[in-house]
């Protein structure tokens, strides 16, 4: 390394602490301190915003007068990922193109299409139920994802806690705990369980990839699914460990190349 690079690295090393300068934590701290709540991630023109706020208010008043909270309220994500907080405090992250509707009063019911990550607020008295047309999930409070983006199957991945996953509300199902996943195919009676599911299936929501002795071939498969590019590499049998932030593909590739001493080409 050149002299100036040494100076940079020396300075970084002198102060480096694991877990310090964590951007994600800093964002959380900022939001908590400044009362920024998760809200629809839309960039609206202020005029349209004012109009739709007025319209939403009217609709809200109408719904309230006619039926209390018995109606379904729909939220959706267009081209970008969006976060919402539901009335019970549950945070949902919708992948682009996903739709979710909820109804919350004596019960907590959600219907959805597409891919949604749930961080469910705990409420023992009211289980949280997700209906994804042919797939059904019931929980008390936990973090999990439902991926119903494919035509003929629905996947569930559990990041924390415990969930019940079945074909429908009255059907027999499987219990999934932290780190487990399951898939139900169209027409099947029961979901098929994966004891150790792919943790990177929620990379889109978490913002990072985690690898633990993962063969390079699987690493690249995972990255190409996420970034929609394909790769060729010199030695696919090598194994990779570590956490990589998902915001910079080129840097990830660079780090993998150096760590494993391989060459990776994007196509």
């Amino acid at each position: 390394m050149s002299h100036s690079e040494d100076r940079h690295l020396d300075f970084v090393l002198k102060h480096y602490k694991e877990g310090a300068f964590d951007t994600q934590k800093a964002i959380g701290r900022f939001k908590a301190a400044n009362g920024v709540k998760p809200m629809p991630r839309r960039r609206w023109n202020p005029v349209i915003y004012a109009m739709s706020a007025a319209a939403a208010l009217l609709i809200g008043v109408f719904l309230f007068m006619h039926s209390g909270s018995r109606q379904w309220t729909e939220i959706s994500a267009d081209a970008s990922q969006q976060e919402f907080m539901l009335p019970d405090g549950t945070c949902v992250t919708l992948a682009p193109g996903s739709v979710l509707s909820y109804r919350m009063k004596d019960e907590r019911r959600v219907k959805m299409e597409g891919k949604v990550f749930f961080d469910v607020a705990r409420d023992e008295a009211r289980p949280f139920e997700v209906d994804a047309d042919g797939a059904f999930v019931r929980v008390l409070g936990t973090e999990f994802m439902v991926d119903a983006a494919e035509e003929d199957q629905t996947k569930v991945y559990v990041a924390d806690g415990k969930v019940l996953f079945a074909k429908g509300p009255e059907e027999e199902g499987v219990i999934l705990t932290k780190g487990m996943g399951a898939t139900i195919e169209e027409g099947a009676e029961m979901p098929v369980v994966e004891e150790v599911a792919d943790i990177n299936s929620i990379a889109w929501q978490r913002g990072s990839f985690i690898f633990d002795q993962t063969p390079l071939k699987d690493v690249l498969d995972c990255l190409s699914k996420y970034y929609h590019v394909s790769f060729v590499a010199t030695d696919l049998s090598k194994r990779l460990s570590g956490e990589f932030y998902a915001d910079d593909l080129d840097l990830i590739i660079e780090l993998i190349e150096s760590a494993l001493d391989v060459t990776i080409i994007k196509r």
Partner: protein
Amino acid sequence: MAVYSPNTLRQTDIEDLFRYNYRPLCMYALHYLQDTDLVEDVVQECFTTLWEKLEQGSQVANRRAYLYMTVRNRCLDHLRRKGIQTESLKPYDTYGIIDDDDAEERSQIEAKLWTAIDSLPEKCRQVFLMSKRDGLKYEEIAQELGLSVNTVRNQISKALNVLKNGAIKIYSFILGIF
């Protein structure tokens, strides 16, 4: 129609500002204050100042430049309150005083190095930090972690390799070589 009003400052905007600038701003403030905890507080305060300003309807044409300016001012305030003489209110690195004008660009390179260290495999990072940050000898690290000296040497050279290649890329990115 691009209307730049506080109404358009939504959650994603502030998150993007954080994603692109939080770590570089921390490194920048670190050159003045040399204290990671204090630095995180200062940078938080500066984001809050910007947020409040925008919410009041003030125009901030270049938010990034504004953040660097407020971080610098806030750092100097801290140093003055500690009774440090005005002429020595300068950014430092491990070798001595650095140029005020360079500090911003350096911080971006250093933030990338910090991220690269974060991304090292855990064992590799541990060995690397024990050697380069804590100054332990290869033998001492080997003994403490129950590894062979050879493994320690390999892990360190692997880490340096990652950082070096990462750094080359960072330089070429910033200097626009490619």
